[in-house]
Each structure stands twice: as C-alpha cells, then as structure tokens.
C-alpha cells in the first residue's frame, strides 16, 4: 500500500500484549510458552521504532532470563520437589527446629529442575509481553489517549516523565561542580551540598513551567457547571460496587452470579462517571491516534490465540500442564502452531513505528 498509514494506537499494543500474557499464563507447556514468546519477540523486532523506550526491550529480555535463572537456582538449593531421578546431590544443611521444614541442599532431581524451569519460563514470557507493549507503544502517546476525566493526571505524569531526566542532568552537573570547591565536605554536609542546589533548581524549573502553562491557557476551559450534580456520588458508588462484587465473586461461595452482576454494574457506573467528569474540560486533541479496524484486528488476533488455548484447555487439559514426574518430553499439540501464529499476526496489518 502506497499511502502512509497512521501509527498503531498505543492502547492496541497494550491490549494485544496483555491478552498474549493471559494466553501464556494458562499453560506450563514450555513448547507453547516458547512459541508464543518467539511470536511476541518477532512482532517487537519487526514493528518497534528506534525511540529510547523501544530500545528498552533488551532490558526486559535480560530480566526474563534472570527470572528463569533465579527460579531454577532456588529449586536447586532449597528444593521443594524432590521426586524423580536424582541428577546430583548437594551437601545438606538442616536448619534448627524453629525453622523446621526448611532444608538446604540435598538431592537435586530432574523433575524438580524441570518443574522450576517450566514455571520460570511462563513468568519470563509474561514479562516479555509487558516489555513488548512498552517497546511498541510510545508511553507519552498512550498517556495522551486517556479519557478526558483523567486529563490532569496524565498531564502530571507526562511532566514527571520529562522532569526526571532533567533532575538526573542537574544532579550530574552539581556533583561535577562539587569538585570545583575541592570536594572536601563529608557526610551530611556533602549530601546537602548536592541536594540543595538540585532541589532549588527543580523548584525553579517547576515554577517556570507552571507560569508557562498558566499563560498558555491550561485549565481555561474548566467549567464545573457542565458536570451536573451527583458525580462524586456516582464515582464513589461505582468503586463500592466493584469492591463488593469482587468480594462476592472471590470470597463467598455460591454467589458468582450476584458478584458478576455487582461487578458489571460497578464498571458501568465508573464508565458513566468518567465520561461525565470528562465534560468539565473542553480541551481538544491535536492529531489523536485513531482506533481503526487495524487496531481491532491487532487485539482480535491475540484474543483468538487466547480462545484457541481455552478451547484446548477444555479438550485436553493435560497437554497444557505437562507432568514432570516422571520427566517426559512435553507433547506438541498441533493447535499450538495456530495459537503462536495468531499472536504474530499483527505484523500483517501494522507498520514499523516512527
């Protein structure tokens, strides 16, 4: 297609990534987990821009590896699952009675290690999904597209995002400047010598920013008269309903239906309340990201993958939760491939970010 398409809506990437994370959380089968992970990584590599946040995806991969390593190391040293063929035996330490039940070392079994590996992989895949959303969606654009009711909140976060690097810069500058006075101060005095100029700098900048925002009309269209009465009541009520509904759903047996009803009512009230309170501002948006069929397709692809895995769970739960005692090679179900392909499908309808 010759025409330049608009960048994909940031919330579409978040939706896609969260649904993909939900998909892997359903299974411990390493084959499916690795397939989905590969699909996510493929989409990231094909569609990320070279903005700073997009480059952060490497950090998430490292974090994922660290998680797997920690999970396996914990299993090796602290045990937990000690059945199956023994790989090697570590010298065993028994903790005193007050810490009864905890054994350090001892036999390390293949089943135990495999169990930990599968578990760690699943967690790593979820982390990578979040990292993928972070790399694909410009965080500032994501914040720009929040409901109008949360406008002030998103402005505050955006400002914090730009102030943080400025603080680092001024910290660096002041620390370097300390050398010019000989850098002799020690202890508390040395801390204040750095903190005081940095804080003064920060306060001064905030005042300048506030003056600039004020003189450019920030908050000018605020009119509480447009909101209508009872808004606070509606919002508080919605929070209460959501809390009560969750409690019923999770805590009280045999009240799932009532719980779901409460939850649905609460969510509806919250949506209504947010819409209403958005009316007190009549700011407009410059070139807002549009939610087109592409965005719907991106989220739908991941949702389809989730449905495939859910269906599989109904048919053949064993294939999703392979046993490690005895340690056998996990089976590859033919439906794994379409699930992973669906996660990777958004590359067909999106373009590389700018």
């Amino acid at each position: 297609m010759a025409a330049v398409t608009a960048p994909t809506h940031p919330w579409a990437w978040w939706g896609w990534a969260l649904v993909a994370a939900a998909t892997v959380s359903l299974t411990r089968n390493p084959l499916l987990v690795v397939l989905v992970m590969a699909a996510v990584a493929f989409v990231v590599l094909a569609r990320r821009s070279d903005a700073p946040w997009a480059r952060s995806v490497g950090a998430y991969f490292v974090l994922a590896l660290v998680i797997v390593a920690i999970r396996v190391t914990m299993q090796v040293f602290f045990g937990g699952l000690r059945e199956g063929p023994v790989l090697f035996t570590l010298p065993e330490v028994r903790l005193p009675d007050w810490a009864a039940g905890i054994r350090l070392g001892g036999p390390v079994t293949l089943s135990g290690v495999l169990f930990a590996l599968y578990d760690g992989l699943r967690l790593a895949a979820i982390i990578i999904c979040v990292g993928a959303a972070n790399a694909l969606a410009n965080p500032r654009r994501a914040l720009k597209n929040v409901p109008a009711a949360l406008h002030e909140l998103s402005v505050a976060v955006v400002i914090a995002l730009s102030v943080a690097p400025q603080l680092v810069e001024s910290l660096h500058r002041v620390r370097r400047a300390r050398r010019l006075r000989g850098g002799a101060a020690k202890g508390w005095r040395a801390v204040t010598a750095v903190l005081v100029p940095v804080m003064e700098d920060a306060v001064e900048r905030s005042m300048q920013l506030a003056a600039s925002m004020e003189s450019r009309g920030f908050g000018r269209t605020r009119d509480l008269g447009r909101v209508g009465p009872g808004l606070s009541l509606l919002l508080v009520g919605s929070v209460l309903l959501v809390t009560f509904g969750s409690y019923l759903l999770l805590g009280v047996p045999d009240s799932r239906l009532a719980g779901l009803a409460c939850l649905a009512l609460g969510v509806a009230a919250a949506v209504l309340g947010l819409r209403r309170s958005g009316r007190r501002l009549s700011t407009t948006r410059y070139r807002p990201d549009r939610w087109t069929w592409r965005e719907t397709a991106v989220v739908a692809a991941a949702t389809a993958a989730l449905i495939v895995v859910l269906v599989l769970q109904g048919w053949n739960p064993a294939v999703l939760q392979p046993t490690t005692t005895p340690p056998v090679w996990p089976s590859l179900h033919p439906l794994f491939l379409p699930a992973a392909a669906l996660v990777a499908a958004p590359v067909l309808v999106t373009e590389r970010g700018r």
Partner: protein
Amino acid sequence: MIQFDDVTIGYGTEPVLDRVSFTIDDGDLCLLVGATGSGKSTLLGAINGLVPHFTGASMAGDVRVDGRSTRQHPPREFADLVGFVGQNPLAGFVTDTVEDEIAYGMEQLGVEATAMRKRVEETLDLMNIADLRRRALVTLSGGQQQRVAIAAVLAAQPRVLVLDEPTSALDPTAAQDVLAAITSLVHDLGLTVVLAEHRLERVMQAADQVLWLPGDGSAVLGAASEVLGRASVVPPLAELAATLGWDEVPLSVRQARRKVAAERIVLRPAAEAVPTTPAGPTPLLRATGLTVRHGDLTAVDGINLDLHAGSVTTLMGRNGAGKSSLFWALQGAQPSTGSLQVDGHDPRRLSPARARELVGLVPQTAADLLHLHTVALECQQSDRESGEPVGTTEGLLRRLGADLVPDRHPRDLSEGQRLALVLAIQLAASPRIVLLDEPTRGLDYPMKQQLADILADLASRGHGVVVSTHDVEFAAHASQRTVILAEGDVIADGPTREVCTASPAFAPQVAKVFHPEQVLTTAEVASRRG
C-alpha cells in the same frame, strides 16, 4: 493595545513600579530597557496578569490589553491575546516534540481539530521550523528551541507577543535568527511586540519605541533614538554618539557609518600595538592534543593551547562548539586525553583540593556551587575549604566591589552578585588560572564594565584569565587575546583586535562602523580622533 494606567507593583514595602502610566500602540515593536533589577520582568509579567495573579505581588492601578483588564481575568484567559516567551525556552516546554508543543496551547483553548491541524502547519512555516516538526525538543539547539517557543505561543494567534530576554543564552548567529524572526512578525503580521533585551545593539534598529525603566519606579516611553540618548543603559552606538557629540543615537551600523562619512571623521593611525602575550617565556598552562569525548561525540578535538600569566583571553564560538567542555577539561574535572600541564603539574592527577589551586573555574550555572543559607556562611565555608585565614573570601568579595548583605540568601542575589560570590570563593584558593564560563549572561552594561575591570585587575595580579562569552562587545572591551572554537577545533587564535575585526559575526559594532580601521571600543575612537 497595551495600556498601563497608574500602575504600582511591589513585593514588599518598596514598589518596583511606582504609578506608571503609558500606552503601547497596536503593531509597535517596543524595546524594554533598564538595569538588572529595575523591574523589567515584573512589567512584562504584568501585561498578561502573571503579575500579580501568579507571583503574588501587590498591585494598584489597571493594566488593559485590547480592553481586557488583568484585574478581572487570570493569565490563562489572556492566552489567546498575549503570547509570553521566557528566557529559558526549555523550562517552559510542556510536551516533548515540536508539533505537540505547538498544538498544546490550542488544545487548552479547545480549538477544533481541523483548524488546529491547519494552524500548526501555518505556524511551522511562519517560524521556518517545518523540518524540525518531529524532533524531540531536548535535541534542538538553543536558537531552534527559542523559535519553537515563539511558534508555540503564536499558534494561539495572540495580538501581543511578550518576550523576556529571548536571546540571552544564544550565540550571536542564533540570536540574530531569533530577532530576525521577531521583527518579521511585527512587519508581516502586525503583531505588537514587547521585548526586553540586554544587548540592545542587536535590536534597537528594529524598535519603534523604547520603554526605559530608570530603576526608581518610573518608566519613560519614547522614540528609540531619543530615549537611548539619555538612558543609563548605554549600547555601543549610544556611547559612540556621546563620544562624538551627536545628539541623536544612530540605531544601526549603517546610520552610524553614513554619519561618520558625512562628518568626515578620520582616525589617526593606531599607536604602537600592545603585545598580547606578555614577556613570560614559559606559558602558565600548556595543553597539547587535548581531547574530550562524551560517548561518541567528540566535544574537544585535539586542541593545542598555551595560556600566559597576566592576560585576559576570550573564548568564543557557537553553542555546542566545545567551550564548556574545554574549560572543564582544563580544570581537570572532566576526563580528557592528551597532555595538560599547569605550572608543572597535571590537574587531572591531583586531588580536587590541589587542582583548584592551579585552575579555578566559575561554571555557567554558578549557583551549583552554593548550598548554604547565607552569604556569610558560604564565605566561612570557602575559607575552610581553601585553608585560608577567616575573612579571606569576604575580603576578596569586597575587593571585587560587590557590597553584599552577609545574611542574604545566595539565591536572592542578583546575577552579578552571585557571580562575584562564586568568583570570590574560587579566588580564595588563589588559583594560577581563572576560567569563567559565560559570566556575562544576564549582566547589564555597568555590570559588564565592572566585570571587565575585575578581570583586568586579576590579570595584573599575575593570574591567567580566560572567559567564554557570546558577547562580542564584551570580548572587544575586556580581552587582549581571542580564541574561536568550532566543532571542538580552534579556528582562530590571536590578538582580539585582529580576530574580532576579521570576521563580521564576531566584530563589535564600533569596528563595523569604522571598518576597515581596526578599532574596537569607543575609548579608542576618542583617543585616535584627528
């Protein structure tokens, strides 16, 4: 368009503006001049109501813009009428890219999406920044940032533009760009512009009116050539007019040249040129192949530099040419490669306390060195750090001619006073070399004169002094030698007289008036007049 009616503004008992009344007409470029601390920023802030609504001053009288009074309307309701641009554009940016920043004001005003799109494009073209539209604001140069800041307020289509020293941080070329953009706005759009500027020589030719704040709370408004003749703020051409006995100040180099030609003013040949490097055979500081890298950016690229005791050297060059990096490297605080010898030692290998006895640096943001509550405490701390007897720093401060209130908080000092305090702190260690990074920023003419005297005094006491500045007039006045950097290289190094008269970008106005004669200051004109 702008009407001040019997306005009194004060922050305590002393009023900054005292019963001021004047009217600025629609479509005028009004230049606001006055010494530091005479209330320029207060007056500018009063135009859109930031004073008193935002700063919390007490105010009597009435300010009206296009009939709208700041008494009844807060600053945000002036957003579509008055565009306000401050000194530091980066501090006022709310978003992170050029396009979003330009749209921000319109979003707040609730301008409809299609209209907004059109206006953003128009504004980008108007300020000639269309090629920057997707750039992140922090990656822009100072001049570009200032043009984006102006574009961002223009997009709301105000009738009045208020600018508080928009060029004080810019190099001469970038400043010229910004000022050219502002004057074209006045001519093409008929905007009313109120502009505060220290370096009048750059803008006075474009000004319709000058508003002078003498500092006693009053305000004088009148034609530029008339008001500048009696204002205490004396740009070089006004000084020249006074020296040559003209009763009207020429507002541009062209006017002055014509007048000089018409009056047949001829200069006698110059007396014997003063040797620029004093007789000392060995330099005090010798850097060979000095290189500074920040990541993969080479800020200073293999510079060779000798500095001698007893002279003042100016360092000039664009923003980002490597001036600050060179200073920090010479001090030893910035890691660098190449050889560096100061008085037989390498400051990079010495402890910070020893290094500052060789090279003292007053950084660009001098306030970074101050962290105590009063001037007196800072002085005592400085005596302790330098291992000098109590009272040394205070004595130096007095010698620098700054009469400071010892119990004043350093943040409440004026730019000039704060500079003097930091300079005194650095001098307490009696360094052989004194480096000053952009000390002239925010200083008015008398303060710059005072600074030039201080530097000459330091040189005569045997210090080697280097000062980086964008102010060619100051360089011409205060230094014997000038070094120009570009992209980390020395591109010119020689006597100030030759370097500054050779290139139009770095020539002071007097030199331009008498070109091809090599004169730099009005004092010289007076002494060489036939």
